[in-house]
Every structure is written in structure tokens, then in C-alpha cells.
């Protein structure tokens, strides 16, 4: 089973990387960009026996740091 975990910074957490990308895009001449936030995509290939609860556990214990990040699990 393919699983995608999307990790993004919480609102209010400064994102220097997103800001740098924003700045670079504007420097290239792209107009109308209001904001850029950079996140992380983690793709897992797991056995069908792996439960939703186990996936959630993986996110909470390692894949995302809930002090600063949100996560979303997407199963293919």
C-alpha cells in the first residue's frame, strides 16, 4: 500500500525557506504571488496490514514535529 504523508508548517510558524522561494520567484519576474509555504512529502510503501492507527503513530512520533508542523495522511 502506498501512503503519502504531507508535512507542513503550522500557521504562524516562520518559514524562511518559503520566503526565499517567494523572493526567488519574484526575482524571476513572476507576479501575483501572495505567499509561499514549503512543506515536505514523505512517501511510504507499507504492508496492507499496517493500520491507520499505526500510520498516525508514525506521524506523531517521528515524521512530524507537532510543536511546529501539521501532517496529513493520504492513502493511494
Amino acid at each position, binding site marked *: 500500500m502506498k501512503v503519502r504523508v504531507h508535512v507542513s508548517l503550522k500557521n504562524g*510558524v*516562520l518559514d*524562511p*525557506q518559503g*520566503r*526565499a522561494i517567494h523572493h526567488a520567484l519574484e526575482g524571476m519576474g513572476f507576479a501575483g504571488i501572495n505567499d509561499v509555504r514549503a512543506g515536505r512529502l514523505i512517501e511510504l510503501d507499507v504492508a496492507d496490514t499496517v493500520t491507520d492507527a499505526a500510520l498516525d503513530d508514525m506521524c506523531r*512520533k*517521528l*515524521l512530524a*514535529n507537532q*510543536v*511546529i508542523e501539521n501532517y496529513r495522511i493520504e492513502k493511494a
Partner: protein
Amino acid sequence: MGFTAAVITFPGSNCDRDMAVAVETITGGTVHRVWHGDAALPDGLDFIALPGGFSYGDYLRSGAMAARSPIMQAVIEQAARGVAVLGVCNGFQVLTEAGLLPGALLRNAGQRFVCREVALTVGTSQSLFTSGYFKDQRITVPVAHHDGNYFADEATLDRLEAEDRVAFRYAEPVNGSQRQIAGVLNTAGNVLGMMPHPERMIEPAQGGSDGRVLFESVLRAVGVTA
């Protein structure tokens, strides 16, 4: 029995030897070098140090992998028993990732790696790590980091200040840290995480010895004679 310490080495640690030399030189005690994959710490420890570096290449998040390594379970147990635990730089990141300290260290606001001596002010002298300083004392200690931008929510920051748990603050802009926080203590006061490197400032040949006081404070608090 003399002062007994452990310095943990993770894959990618690079300040472990400096830390061990500083602890040994200043305390005159025994320093055990412990590998991250070890399941247990030596008995009778007075002090545990998590050094700087780039454990696991800073993959995923700085300190995230190291915080889940086998030895950290033992470090968490010793911290709960009241053993003094110091995390410097990557060690601070590991302590936050392990949940021993609140908050997180984000990418520097200026996006650049910062490597220079910075001025700090001592936030409190009421801790076993900082008793040798006086409150608001200005000291100089080097930093060398890319992810040193301390973040915690407002309620946590308020609590840290109300409980006198901000050990050090930057006296100048360095990395965008909330409320200029450079180092924080846990609730019990026996765990300190800080981005600046006190182990690199222990004798005049290194440009100053402001970091030495921290280790002397620990030695005095532990109450063993060197």
C-alpha cells in the same frame, strides 16, 4: 567518588571531543564516551552532555533521528531522576525533539548558517548550570548553526519566563529566536539546552573563558570534589 560524566556521540556529532575535553579539564572528573546505539549509560553519572554536530545529516529535522536513538531512552530516565543534562547546539535540537525541553529550533530567520562569537545575557543565575554567573551578566560565546531559531507558542514562552527558565538570551540579533532565547531549562531545572557553545570558550587561548563558568557551576551543584 569524583565527578562522573557521559558525552553521547551520535552519527554526525562533531563537538563530542571538544565537550569531553572541556568537561574533563574543568571538572577533573571521569568522562565516558557513549555511542548512540548503546542501550545503557554508565552507573553513577553526575552529568550527561549531548554535543553539537549534524546527527544523521540533519535529515528530516535537526535532531529528529537522534532523539529516537536507543541511548535516548536512558538519557530520558536519568533526566527524570534529576541527573544534570546539557544539550549544546545539535544537542539542544535533540532535547526538544525528545520532548525533554519545550519548543523547537527552526531554520535561522536570515536563512544563513551563522558562525561567530555572539554576546549573550544570562537570564537566570538560579539554576545548577548558571549559578556562577549573575543575572543579566553579559558573556561572549560562539554559535555555529543553521537551525537555531527558537520557536514555541506564546503560552509556552510566557510560562518559560514566569518560571525563570530562560537561561540565556542573545544580546544581539542572531537567528530570529522568539524573545531572543538562546537557552532554556526544563521544569525541574536539571536539563538545559542552548545553541551557543560554552565548551568552545573555556580558556584564554580560545578567545575567552565565559563558557567555563557553566561547567564550574555544574560541578559545584553536584557537590562532588574533583
